[in-house]
């Protein structure tokens, strides 16, 4: 089947309903990004998603979309939570992979000369790379508590602050979590990894505010001036989350052979909403999401300690917000004029709730929620604000990153770690990595231009530009 997306305006394309599709596919992209999406052979995945039972409105692809398994990365689907289904491939292996942004009272001029010792301190406090070597050793009982209480557990134990919790999606805890739905193997993987970064594209980046686009909203977010230093943390639920996704993919595969037989791709497997497996998976996914929030919260705490070690006790770091970009959330949305409960699958997509929505913190009620979009290593990252328009357009969702265009294999063949490191140093960006090759795989040239992704989000009105951030130093997992 040749897929011919129809251009609706400068930032939206539609693929009309055809074949098995229950709804049309909507793609947020400009011409250039659309070409990259077409080249990556992932439109078919958006079309496959449109065939899921109970999908509402549109199957949606974000401007940073690229090929995934089951859903594309950058895929959004709102699926009827009573009569539809839930699909682990629509969430991803790294359940609640996400980003947290902290603002500081430092100016880039104060940090520039101390960036190397700062990265060393971060690297020392936050274990990165393969294997489980968290500073925090958990008993099996403590792990159960984390799965129920999420980031709130860590504050009880004296790590981080109540403000961190107030400024976190879901206050760092999904109430529907049930740790008994997480396998012993997943728990075993999770016990030693709270407060660790992992590897791949996960990182901690020290950045400064390069440009503010909306002063008032930025101020509400705690971004007060250009040159202000901020810290972006990107990671997820580590081995516990990966194992949970894998466990339920396998369970669904065994339970529903008749569904598998009809699917264009095995990884698109789903459980009908009324089945016990759907309920179990949702409860397990919530528990893994809580684990991820506890993890990012601990890393935030360790980041604060590293800054205090280098800059003394006067330095202050406040969490602006923490957002998930691999998750399914139970939300109410207006569909055909009626409020309906849906599971909004966001796989490589960020919630973008606008002003007035009860799910977002009081302090952001007038501005809409903060959204953070990390760029590739060495390029800009962005702070956006959620909009009311996003409910109509994208079930309150926007993009999540730059999106890869080049394979890791090609990236390794194209760049050499030491020259890449020197090139970044020339523009005042220092990289510290657990591994050399990890650097080339994440080379900026292997990604789309994040600024273009942001332009599309802004123009489509699904996430408005607030501030552009530039990197100074990166700790890579």
């Amino acid at each position: 089947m040749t897929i011919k997306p129809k251009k609706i305006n400068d930032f939206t394309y539609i693929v009309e309903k055809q074949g098995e599709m229950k709804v049309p596919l909507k793609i947020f992209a400009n011409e250039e990004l659309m070409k990259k999406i077409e080249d990556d052979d992932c439109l078919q995945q958006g079309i496959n998603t449109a065939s899921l039972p109970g999908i509402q409105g549109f199957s949606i692809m974000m401007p940073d979309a690229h090929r995934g398994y089951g859903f594309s990365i950058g895929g959004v689907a709102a699926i009827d939570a009573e009569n539809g289904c839930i699909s682990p491939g629509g969430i991803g292996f790294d359940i609640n992979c996400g980003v947290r942004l902290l603002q500081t009272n430092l100016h880039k001029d104060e940090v520039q000369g101390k960036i190397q010792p700062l990265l060393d301190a971060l690297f020392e406090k936050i274990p990165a790379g393969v294997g489980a070597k968290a500073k925090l050793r958990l008993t099996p009982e403590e792990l159960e508590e984390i799965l129920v209480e999420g980031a709130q557990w860590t504050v009880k134990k004296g790590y981080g602050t109540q403000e961190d919790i107030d400024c976190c999606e879901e206050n760092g805890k999904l109430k529907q979590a049930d740790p008994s739905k997480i396998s012993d193997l997943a728990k075993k993987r999770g016990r030693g990894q709270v407060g660790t970064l992992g590897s791949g594209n996960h990182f901690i980046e020290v950045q400064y505010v390069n440009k503010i686009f909306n002063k008032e909203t930025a101020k509400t977010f705690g971004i007060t001036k250009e040159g202000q230093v901020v810290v972006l943390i990107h990671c997820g639920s580590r081995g516990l989350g990966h194992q949970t996704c894998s466990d339920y993919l396998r369970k669904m595969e065994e339970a529903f052979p008749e569904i598998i037989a009809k699917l264009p791709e095995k990884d698109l497997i789903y459980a009908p909403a009324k089945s016990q497996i759907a309920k179990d998976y949702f409860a397990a996914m919530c528990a893994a999401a809580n684990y991820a929030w506890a993890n990012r919260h601990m890393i935030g705490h360790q980041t604060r300690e590293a800054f205090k070690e280098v800059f003394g006790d006067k330095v202050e770091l406040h969490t602006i917000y923490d957002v998930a970009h691999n998750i399914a959330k139970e939300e109410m949305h207006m569909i055909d004029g009626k409020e309906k409960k849906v599971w909004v699958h966001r796989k490589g997509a960020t919630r973008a709730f606008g002003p007035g929505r009860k799910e977002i913190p009081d302090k952001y009620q007038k501005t809409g929620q903060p959204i953070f979009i990390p760029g590739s290593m060495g390029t800009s990252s962005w702070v956006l604000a959620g909009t009311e328009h996003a409910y109509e357009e994208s079930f309150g969702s926007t993009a999540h990153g730059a999106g890869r265009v080049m394979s890791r294999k090609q990236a390794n063949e194209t760049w050499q770690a030491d020259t890449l490191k020197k090139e970044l140093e020339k523009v005042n960006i220092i990289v510290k990595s657990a591994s050399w090759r990890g650097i080339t795989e994440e080379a900026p040239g292997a990604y789309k231009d994040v600024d273009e992704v942001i332009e599309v989000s802004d123009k489509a009105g699904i996430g408005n530009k607030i501030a552009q951030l530039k990197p100074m130093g990166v700790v890579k997992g």
Partner: protein
Amino acid sequence: MKKYEFLDHTADVKFLAYGKTLEEAFANAALASYDIMTDVKKVKAVEEKSIKVTSKKKESLLYDFLEELIVLTDIEGFLLSKVKTIEIKENKSDFTLTATVLGDNGDNYDVHTYIKSVTYSDMFIKETPTQTTIQVVHDI
């Protein structure tokens, strides 16, 4: 004969693994998986681990076998150097794989990427009387 080769995949890692038999292809898929994480040729064969998995289909057997290895790496820091023995038995309604693998602790090596999970994406096992070819995509 080539043991395995990597293919282009935008976000994750895709490879083909070959063998004269199903067992050999499985063993080479394990080697390819560790070649993603580290320079597998440098890993010493000083620790031995036993693996046993039972699964309904050959594809799920491959998935479960590679997942066992990923879990060993995640929990114990184990890096594979070679597959010492591997046997796949067809039972009445499922398959059983037993293997012993050799390797070393990851602390001693430059490990540049970690595999989050095996996936079923584009997975196939093609068997002819003389050769088996396997394709796998790992999420990293």
